[in-house]
């Protein structure tokens, strides 16, 4: 019977890992969307001429901002997002490894259980 308990524990741990993984994948996708959005803005800023005044939206108002400041801001954001993507990517790899290991454990346990059942009959 202890095999069965082990199997149950392993399978609940596995589903937990899967859930964690999908949360991380979601975060990764969100970061990707943010990255491309900021890239579009960066490209837009690259095309500006000096008479194009830049405004930044703060709540319901638009505040005038220097072009250089805005460019620096977006660059900083891009850097931050890139580093976040690296971090999340590492997390994803780690959890992938752990979940693969758990899966193997599950398969082994199932095989052992089946063997025990075959012996018993």
């Amino acid at each position, binding site marked *: 019977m202890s095999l069965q308990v082990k199997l149950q524990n392993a399978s609940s741990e596995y589903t937990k890992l899967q859930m964690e993984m999908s949360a991380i994948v979601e975060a990764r996708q969100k970061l990707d969307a943010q990255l491309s959005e900021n890239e579009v*803005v960066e490209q*837009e*800023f690259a095309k500006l001429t000096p008479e*194009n005044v830049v*405004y930044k*939206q*703060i709540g319901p108002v*638009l505040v005038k901002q220097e072009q250089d400041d*805005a460019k620096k801001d*977006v660059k900083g954001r891009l850097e931050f997002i890139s580093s976040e993507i690296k971090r999340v990517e590492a997390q994803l790899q780690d959890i992938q490894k752990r979940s693969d290991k758990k899966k193997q454990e599950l398969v082994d346990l199932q095989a052992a259980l089946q063997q025990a059942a075959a012996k018993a009959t």
Partner: protein
Amino acid sequence: MAQTAAAAGAPQQISVTDLDIPQLSDVRRQLEEELNHLTNSFAQLKQAQSKFKNCVENVKEVKPENKDKPILVPLTNSLYVPGKLADTGNVIVDVGTGYFVKKTTPQAIQHYSAKITYLQSNLDTLEETITKKRENLNYLLSVMQQKLAQQQQEGKPIQAS
């Protein structure tokens, strides 16, 4: 058509004809899900594109002929205040992530037109993918029907090895 579908559908898998019926319906479900997702994205892109097209039309109305003509500015859905166009040479464009840029009207039209062409290229590639997926699905369905007919002819369900 069936041949191209088979070639596109099974590059990394074994031929679809080797699968048994439960496996086939799994693949079918997966394909249908993908197709759904893709058509949804397509509709969303189309919507975004028509919004940009509207923007171009609207910007075109900001022209010197319309200077000083009375207009109604919506403050809420039901509250309008009278106003006048003071500056017909410039508009402020939302470029994303909370940034707005003051542009001349030709610049703004160019900006939106670029967006429209960009979206169009995306739409074209997406349409191609959707057609391919649909062909795959049709091919898969015909294979499934064949298998089912075969099973019925042989009298009882067989398990493919």
